[in-house]
């Protein structure tokens, strides 16, 4: 699209947010934070304060770069009507996450299956109707700002963290469990089967990109090759999460 400043600024800002995860649990991707039954690292006042200060610094930067991107008429002209996926096609392909919401599917695990504190967050539907690159970008625009707001509201809650200890409780034997969560690309599902001794027999993770690659293929029907990179990025798909 030849409008590189926002890409570079967001590249750096994304790293700053990953570092906030490291601040909480020592890993930029949250690995080791969650164990069956709870979390292993607490959100104490020091961490809260650092989080709050960093967010205060980052929030206007995010907002300004978003505005830089969305106020450029060249960007809007390129985004609008490019790679539209109809609501019908999106339903048929089972698109999830921001890509699905851009095509008018309101499904959001946080809203549709709220657990823990999600019930109290009043997450909006965030759906758009056009299903084009602009819609996919706009869903992200809205949700990035909503997410920052959610984090701010959660930091403000005076909750004391009770950490789980490191002994792994035995899993229920001969059981099958499916979990779903809204991750940043959409619905992530974990499924696990245990044997009669409570050992893991089979564990399967399904990434949102598993659904959404077909959405990209659909968006490129009857278009020029020059629309590929733009649509590809607008779906923001994972190779790792699909077929490796």
């Amino acid at each position, binding site marked *: 699209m030849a409008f590189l400043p926002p890409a570079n*600024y967001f590249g750096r800002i994304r790293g700053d947010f990953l570092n906030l995860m490291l601040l909480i649990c020592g890993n930029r991707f949250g*690995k080791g934070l969650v164990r069956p039954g709870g979390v292993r690292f607490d959100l104490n006042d020091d961490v809260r304060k650092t989080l709050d200060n960093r967010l205060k610094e980052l929030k206007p930067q995010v907002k300004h770069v978003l505005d830089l991107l969305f106020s450029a008429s060249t960007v809007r002209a390129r985004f609008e009507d490019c790679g539209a996926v109809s609501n019908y096609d999106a339903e048929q392909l089972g698109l999830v996450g921001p890509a699905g919401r851009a095509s008018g599917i309101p499904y959001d695990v946080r809203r549709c299956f709220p657990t823990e504190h999600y019930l109290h967050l009043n997450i909006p539907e965030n759906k758009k109707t056009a299903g084009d690159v602009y819609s996919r970008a706009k869903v992200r625009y809205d949700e990035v700002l909503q997410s920052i707001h959610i984090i701010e509201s959660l930091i403000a809650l005076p909750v004391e963290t009770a950490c789980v200890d490191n002994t792994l409780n035995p899993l229920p034997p001969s059981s099958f469990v499916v979990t779903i969560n809204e991750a940043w690309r959409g619905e992530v599902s974990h499924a696990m089967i245990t044997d009669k001794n409570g050992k893991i027999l089979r564990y399967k993770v399904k990434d949102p990109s598993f659904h959404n690659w077909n959405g990209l293929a659909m968006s490129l029907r009857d278009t020029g090759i020059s629309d590929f990179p733009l649509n590809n990025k607008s779906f923001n798909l994972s190779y790792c999460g699909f077929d490796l």
Partner: protein
Amino acid sequence: MFTTLKNRFEQGYRTCNYPQEKPAVFSRYRGRPIVQKDAPPEVIQACAAACPQEAIDTSAKKIDMGRCIFCGTCEQISQGRFVRFTGDFEIATAQKDHLITDGDLPALAEHSKQHFKGLFGKSLQLRQVSAGGCNACEADLNVLATPFFDLARFGINFVASPRHSDGIVVTGPVSRNMRTALLKTYEAIPEPKVVIAVGSCTLTGGPFVGSPEITEGLDTILPVDLFIPGCPPHPLTNLHALLTFFK
């Protein structure tokens, strides 16, 4: 136009000064582990039993950083009496057995291949192959191109074809589905070539050890020059490894 300029000024200059200055990492970061050899045997046993990666050797009192996923379970269980994870992110090694450590790591610069420095010291083009990774190692390699790390200022770039590259950077446990593609990519690189293994999965199989679907260690199928441990390795770990080994 005014918005573009205003944003540019707000962003300022963000590139870190590494390697002249080490950027600060938050205190909960878990880097190079240090083992206390005089820890009580029952504490050592408890750590080894709780380690999800079976990375602790109780008799030698060492940790295998190739297996370790740096979850910090042993540090929490021993309350630092047996294992303590430091903030040191410079943990890559040139030989696999150097990964098994009590806290002292051989200096990477002394074990790097000197002819590589001559060949690739000023320009190193790398092809990344994600061989079944979870996207964490891949993402933390990818960020090296962002303004904070700015890998290109050292003459190191990730390129879009093995034909354009001097070596491969492999992530993931080399799943059965990716094995052929990985070997073909390796073959497509002109000699002399470099192989860099990134992350616990690639070094040893990581959490997937024992599964018939993966390869337990990239070094069992390709000659690995540089081992970068972590789950995933911090971008600064990757940066240190590349600069120390090739510069």
